[in-house]
């Protein structure tokens, strides 16, 4: 055992996870995938700042807490109330409620049974699962993904059959509840059949009553030929929440995938990995992100788009507003492989710092091996333009309203693309609410 191993084994969580795996596989029947993933984790442990992809996001302080894997079923009344609270005002939608990864049928509202197939992942055998949903292409070396692969147990498997287009969006609300600090690893699968269409809104909500929640989640999405999926991820969490999320999307030819990531205060840690594999030609992909990062928050978005076939378009816009001592990381990788001629890949990342104590680490990373492509990227970090602020104020617009107008303007590239009006209003109102609170806190120190 070298020094690094000794250090890793000191972390109680590391040992707990190793024990959990050994216990789970006491019969020695683990699939090769689980074994390999477990070995990768055991050898190298949790990611650290020495890993290029985790350079600015140090997990150590978040992993140092004591965690338990013991789950708790919240009281029915508590859940019912929480669902009501989680719903988006004015949004007509179906609802899929999960508690600790288990589907709650009585609180869910779903369409006609012909419109979907829904299973608990625990009902699917490992052999079956790994044969159907291999994830060998991407994420190699991501040890949080490996850890999840070794130990995931629960989650949903939702399939929209060929040619089925849902008449209303689906709001997936995931609740997590444990006895004490909870560390949980789920895996979800969403499969869109050929010519299928769906719009999904996802919320993750802690019912931990002040205890910490660490979610290491993996979601696999498959979008078949000519299918279309819009996915809204709304991360509006509590300070005690730590969210590590790995989302892998594989798109087949002529499919369309739109992803909106809204990272709002105040989870202490948000790390989103988004891996898009364009596994066919003539696909269309839009990745839109808005991150509002407040005091004592670390929000990290790592995205990667893999162009493998010709004639695919990808368009990525991530916009960040940083308050107080907020810290944000953006890493946008675009790979255009040799066969992927006539690729259009566009990436933009803009950051607005509203405090001199906020930090942003932004890194666009384009690797292009084809020669007949249009690719561009742009990255900016700035503050309010004082001249714009003065112009608005000189027309009688108060300082707070003027700032609000300018933030609205800053986010416009992304918000104008939200086609679902209630979702747009909901997200904007959350942003303004968080900003106003923050202005109230920092007015004198930052702007005085």
């Amino acid at each position, binding site marked *: 055992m070298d020094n690094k191993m000794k250090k890793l084994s000191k972390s109680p969580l590391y040992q707990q996870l190793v024990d959990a795996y050994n216990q789970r596989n006491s019969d020695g029947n683990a699939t090769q995938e689980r074994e390999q993933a477990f070995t990768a984790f055991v050898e190298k442990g949790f990611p650290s700042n020495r890993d290029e992809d985790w350079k600015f996001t140090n997990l150590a302080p978040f992993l140092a807490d004591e965690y338990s894997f013991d789950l708790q079923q919240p009281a029915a009344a508590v859940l019912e109330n929480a669902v009501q609270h989680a719903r988006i005002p004015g949004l007509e939608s179906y609802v899929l409620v999960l508690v600790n990864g288990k589907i709650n049928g009585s609180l869910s509202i779903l369409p006609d049974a012909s419109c979907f197939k829904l299973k608990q992942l625990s009902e699917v055998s490992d052999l079956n699962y790994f044969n159907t949903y291999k994830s060998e292409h991407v994420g190699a070396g991501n040890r949080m993904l490996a850890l999840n692969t070794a130990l995931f147990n629960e989650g949903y498997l939702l399939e929209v059959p060929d040619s089925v287009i849902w008449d209303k969006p689906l709001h997936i609300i995931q609740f997590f509840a444990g006895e004490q600090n909870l560390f949980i690893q789920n895996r979800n699968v969403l499969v869109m059949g050929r010519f299928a269409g769906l719009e999904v809104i996802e919320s993750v909500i802690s019912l931990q009553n002040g205890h910490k929640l660490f979610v290491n989640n993996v979601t696999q999405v498959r979008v078949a030929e000519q299918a279309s999926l819009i996915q809204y991820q709304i991360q509006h969490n509590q300070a005690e929440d730590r969210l590590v999320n790995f989302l892998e999307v594989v798109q087949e030819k002529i499919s369309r995938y739109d992803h909106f990531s809204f990272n709002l205060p105040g989870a202490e840690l948000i790390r989103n990995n988004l891996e898009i594999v364009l596994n066919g030609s003539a696909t269309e992909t839009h990745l839109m992100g808005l991150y509002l990062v407040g005091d004592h928050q670390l929000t990290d978005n790592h995205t990667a788009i893999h162009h493998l076939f010709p004639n695919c378009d990808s368009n990525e816009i991530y916009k960040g507003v940083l308050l107080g001592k907020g810290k944000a990381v953006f890493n946008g990788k675009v790979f255009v492989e040799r066969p992927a001629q006539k690729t259009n890949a566009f990436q933009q990342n803009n950051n607005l710092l509203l405090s001199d104590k906020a930090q942003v680490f932004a890194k666009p990373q384009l690797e292009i091996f084809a020669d007949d492509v249009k690719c561009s990227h742009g990255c900016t970090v700035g503050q309010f333009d004082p001249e714009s602020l003065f*112009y608005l104020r000189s027309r009688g617009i108060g300082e707070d309203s003027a700032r609000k*107008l300018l933030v609205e303007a800053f986010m416009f590239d992304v918000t104008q693309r939200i086609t679902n009006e209630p979702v747009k209003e909901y997200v904007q109102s959350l942003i303004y609410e968080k900003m106003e609170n923050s202005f109230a806190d920092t007015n004198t120190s930052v702007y005085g």
Partner: protein
Amino acid sequence: MMLSIKNLHANIEGKEILKGINLEVNAGEVHAIMGPNGSGKSSLASVLAGRENYEVTEGEVWLDGKNLLDMKPEERAREGVFLAFQYPVEIPGVSNINFLKTALSEIRTHRNLPQLSAKEFLKMTREKQELVEFEAKLANRSLNQGFSGGEKKRNEVFQLAMLEPKLSILDETDSGLDIDALRIVSSGINKLRSTENAFVLITHYQRLLEYIVPDFVHVLYNGQIVKSGNKDLALELEEKGYDWLKEEFHGNAALNGQ
């Protein structure tokens, strides 16, 4: 007395730019402020509008008996000060209409006027656009974005018409305008003149004053008003330039032992 400026001194980055301005403006009057480059004309406009990088070191400014220097820029605007910018900014993502609505709403709240309905607002927008002959399409466009230099200046005059200020300060609104645009802008301003409001025109050129006839012309030099007169002073300046005034000023300064 609408505006009263007494012995106004102001610095920018530690350098004194205004060195004792005295000026009184009554309702119904048009004052022109002329002067060579760097004499402090735009600085005076900025200080009156409340631009924050200027520091007032001495003097007073009163607007209808209220201390203007105590107010934030937005408070001055709500009290009726309007600055037409020399270089209006483009703000991508802020729509012209939303901007005007917000401004008008905050000003009307301050003035205890009822809020306009969406219909009334649109009607007013249309009427004021016609009044100042500003045809640019505003809906679904960002503030000043894609506007030519001339359109930006005309948008300033349109905003002036919408916000109905008491005191309008036009900072070189004529610069960068061609003859036709100058005529249109001037005619718009003439239509907005009334016995209730006042205008301060900052300009380099006598040409503007052929269209908007001032009641008073002041020459600003070295941070002070060194000469005041009627519209004929502008003609004299056009003919003789500023050198004779500079000499007079330096001569007086020498006499006074400065």
